């Protein structure tokens, strides 16, 4: 893993090898168009318009039809080119002509001049249109990108009761706009780079200069520059490439569809990574405490926010421990269960042929199956499967004598509890760890459970996210950060940014004013 970080990026386009065309733009217009077509294999959606600029100066406009704004190309670009032909083409040399055109075509938006076929092709494939002029080795690139996108929608994976309803979309520009609408600080930075040998997707590192610790940005940049892969389909690719430990069950970066969450994170001194084509932004660094935080905590009053957090911590413990506790108590420490309850558990387990561990494993797996099936199926059917399937299987399993009713309660409670954790990727880890606890409980009872708990703690204290220990701010303890940990302090009192991120600007407000 470490070695990969230092691997240099390959800059050369490998597809250019072995074919007979130059990678430079020449002076011959027809040859240039030929080269372009050879390079990208003359696809159907490549549109080439040949024009005459007058005095026999030939020109051509090329663009990819699905990626470009045809109206703009026809109305602004081509009309402008033709309108100016009397004025310019006669006197100047082609090189000066193209410079003049660059100034005249300002109405298009961005205009760039290049002589590299590589750059030209990549830009063309990302939606720009190209203007060639006969007799010059320069070409103009026009910013005419426009394609179909999904409109801004409510984030599906993170729904809140109270809070903004906007979610990120697949378009990077829109996503940047959504963040900008939350922070109008001139220090808000969007550092753009490209990722993917073949996909050449845009990747943006977002932070607020003057708040974030510069070392953090440097570290993120260093890791990002080590990425070398064909394509990053989703920000998850980026996350997995730059994370600290790929052996850990815990995610070391947060992902979110919510612009408000990104905005509040960068204002705290974190760094966010956005990838074109992905509605999920990454936020780094995170600690284990982030798994229990949701934007909603801050939108409701502090008492409610604190209560919700406590509920989530309890939820996490139930998710991990409840089935294991059941196994341990039933198979090793019957004496610990109050006698009334012990009798009723024993009575219901009367006809069950399996040991508690097998029983719990069957139900646990069934629950995971149902959940996975519910996620895969179309939404309307999915809900039916979830509820009806759960009920039917639970009910039938009990009456068939495969599991005891108390096991159904345990499994149902575990399932409900696991949904309380806002960070989905952590919730999955907890569900996975639950099976570890179950095995330990089956082998060594309560003793096994506490040993596994200690092991998870050992893992957490050794894990880091972008160099920040995963167990902060519990330990290493930052007591000032504790007012936004399990407790969520009243908003006027949270006038300092988290100390564990070592922000350059530590205060975010002033209570006394």
């Amino acid at each position, binding site marked *: 893993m470490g070695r990969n970080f230092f691997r240099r990026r390959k800059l050369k386009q490998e597809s250019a090898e072995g074919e007979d065309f130059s990678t430079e733009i020449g002076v011959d217009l027809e040859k240039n168009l030929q080269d372009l077509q050879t390079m990208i294999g003359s696809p159907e959606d490549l549109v080439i318009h040949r024009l005459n600029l007058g005095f026999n100066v030939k020109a051509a406009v090329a663009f990819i039809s699905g990626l470009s704004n045809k109206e703009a190309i026809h109305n602004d670009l081509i009309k402008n080119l033709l309108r100016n032909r009397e004025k310019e083409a006669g006197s100047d040399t082609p090189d000066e002509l193209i410079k003049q055109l660059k100034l005249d075509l300002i109405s298009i938006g961005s205009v760039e001049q290049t002589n590299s076929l590589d750059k030209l092709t990549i830009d063309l494939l990302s939606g720009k249109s190209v203007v060639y002029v006969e007799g010059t080795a320069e070409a103009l690139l026009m910013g005419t990108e426009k394609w179909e996108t999904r409109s801004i929608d409510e984030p599906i994976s993170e729904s809140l009761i109270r809070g903004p309803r906007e979610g990120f979309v697949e378009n990077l520009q829109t996503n940047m706009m959504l963040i900008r609408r939350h922070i109008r600080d001139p220090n808000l930075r969007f550092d753009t780079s490209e990722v993917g040998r073949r996909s050449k997707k845009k990747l943006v590192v977002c932070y607020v200069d003057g708040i974030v*610790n510069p*070392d*953090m940005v*440097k*570290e993120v940049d260093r890791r990002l520059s080590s990425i070398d892969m064909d394509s990053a389909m989703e920000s998850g690719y980026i996350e997995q490439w730059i994370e600290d430990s790929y052996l850990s069950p815990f995610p070391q970066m947060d992902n979110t569809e919510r612009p408000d969450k990104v905005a509040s994170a960068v204002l705290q001194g974190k760094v966010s990574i956005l990838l074109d084509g992905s509605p999920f932004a990454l936020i780094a660094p995170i600690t284990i405490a982030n798994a229990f935080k949701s934007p909603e905590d801050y939108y409701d009053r502090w008492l409610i926010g604190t209560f919700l957090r406590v509920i989530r911590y309890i939820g996490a413990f139930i998710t991990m421990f409840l089935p294991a506790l059941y196994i341990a108590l039933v198979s*090793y*420490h019957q*004496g*610990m*269960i*109050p*006698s009334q309850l*012990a009798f009723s558990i024993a009575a219901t387990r009367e006809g069950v042929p399996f040991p508690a561990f097998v029983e719990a494993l069957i139900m646990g797996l069934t629950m995971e199956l149902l959940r996975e099936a519910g996620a895969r199926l179309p939404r309307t059917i999915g809900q039916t499967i979830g509820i009806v399937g759960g009920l039917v299987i639970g009910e039938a399993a009990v009456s068939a004598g495969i599991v005891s009713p108390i096991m159904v309660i345990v499994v149902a409670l575990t399932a409900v509890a696991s949904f309380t954790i806002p960070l989905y990727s952590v919730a999955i880890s907890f569900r996975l760890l639950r099976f570890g606890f179950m095995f330990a409980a089956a082998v*060594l*009872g*309560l*003793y*096994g*459970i*506490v*040993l596994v708990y*200690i*092991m998870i*703690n*050992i893992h957490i*204290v*050794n894990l*880091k996210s972008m*160099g*920040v*220990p995963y*167990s*902060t701010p*519990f*330990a*290493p*303890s930052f007591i000032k950060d504790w007012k936004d940990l399990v407790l969520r302090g009243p908003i006027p009192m949270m006038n300092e940014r988290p100390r*564990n991120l*070592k922000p350059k600007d530590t205060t975010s407000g002033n209570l006394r004013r």
Partner: protein
Amino acid sequence: MSDFKYGDETISSREIMIALPAVTIGVGILSLPREIALLTVGADGWIALLVAGIMITVITWMTSKLAASYPGETFLSYSSKLVTKPVSILFSLILVMQSLLLSAYVIRVIAEIAKAYLFDRTPLEVISLTFLLVVVYAVSGSRAGLFRLNMLFFPIIVLITFILSLFSFGWFEMDNLFPIFETGVRDQIKATEISGLAFVGFNILFFYITLVKDTKKVPKASVHGMLMVIGLYLLIFFVNLGVFGNAVTGNLVYPLIELAKEIEIPGGFFERFDSFFFVIWIMAIFNTTAMSVDVSIYALQPFTKLKKQTLLFCMAPLIYIIGMVPEGSIEVAKLGTFIGYFGIISSSGITLILFTISKIRRGRKKEHAAK
């Protein structure tokens, strides 16, 4: 990443403050009330406990003062300045042995208690081995990680002790604490001696203070750490004596765990709180063991030039074998007493020798400077 130093291998004085009680509180206190109660009348044992605690606190202060006056230097380097190289090697080997024996003893005791309170059929060896493996996993990680574990687990230990004490109030009888001041001086001294054994573990200071950045705060922090131990021990002692009385406490093998058995947690979730209490207490015992193993590895490293992990994998079987040698709980208890005496005498002795010599040296230097 210069600004994220706290993620590195350095520790703060606050972490030392937590590490001390985390190491000291372990298996000793589980049986300590019995040992004190056997020698004293009523609840008089608190005097012995307090005196022993204060003495150890003074020695702890000396140890940390000594180590902190050589910031950034290892035990070997500053002690060889004071008492020649061979003697300092001897000293550090004694300290290493103390930690190794302590960890071996602890993994044995945890199995004994687990057998008594959690399961009866699981063999001792398996219980010890699994525990040792978890300790090995912890030690093979980063050293700073161990200190973070202390910080995570110690509050839980304090909390469970407070919960236990709180719910014991219903069973607490003032009469059990009387008569007062009836114990003879000789018995008090004997009880003080026994109490001192439960404070074994501060030898980690000799080695870990090297890693601390803000050394000036360390002596104060370690005194605070020790005071926490005394406070917690006194609380446990009083609650034990108050609930059971002197005679009963003297006959219980692990009075603290029995206390958890006696009380009833409202709500009726647990029929027996003792198993649960012991399971939580395993975290305290884990901290003791992990720190002891780590400190012995840390102290041995300069001699062997081996990697930390390699050394650890060599030491772990040794610890396991030592832990498995005693047969029966009487021999285990004997080993415990031996380790207590050995630990307290050797660490206090080394501290006193080094501290005195360093004071004399400093004094001479000042005289020279004055002349």
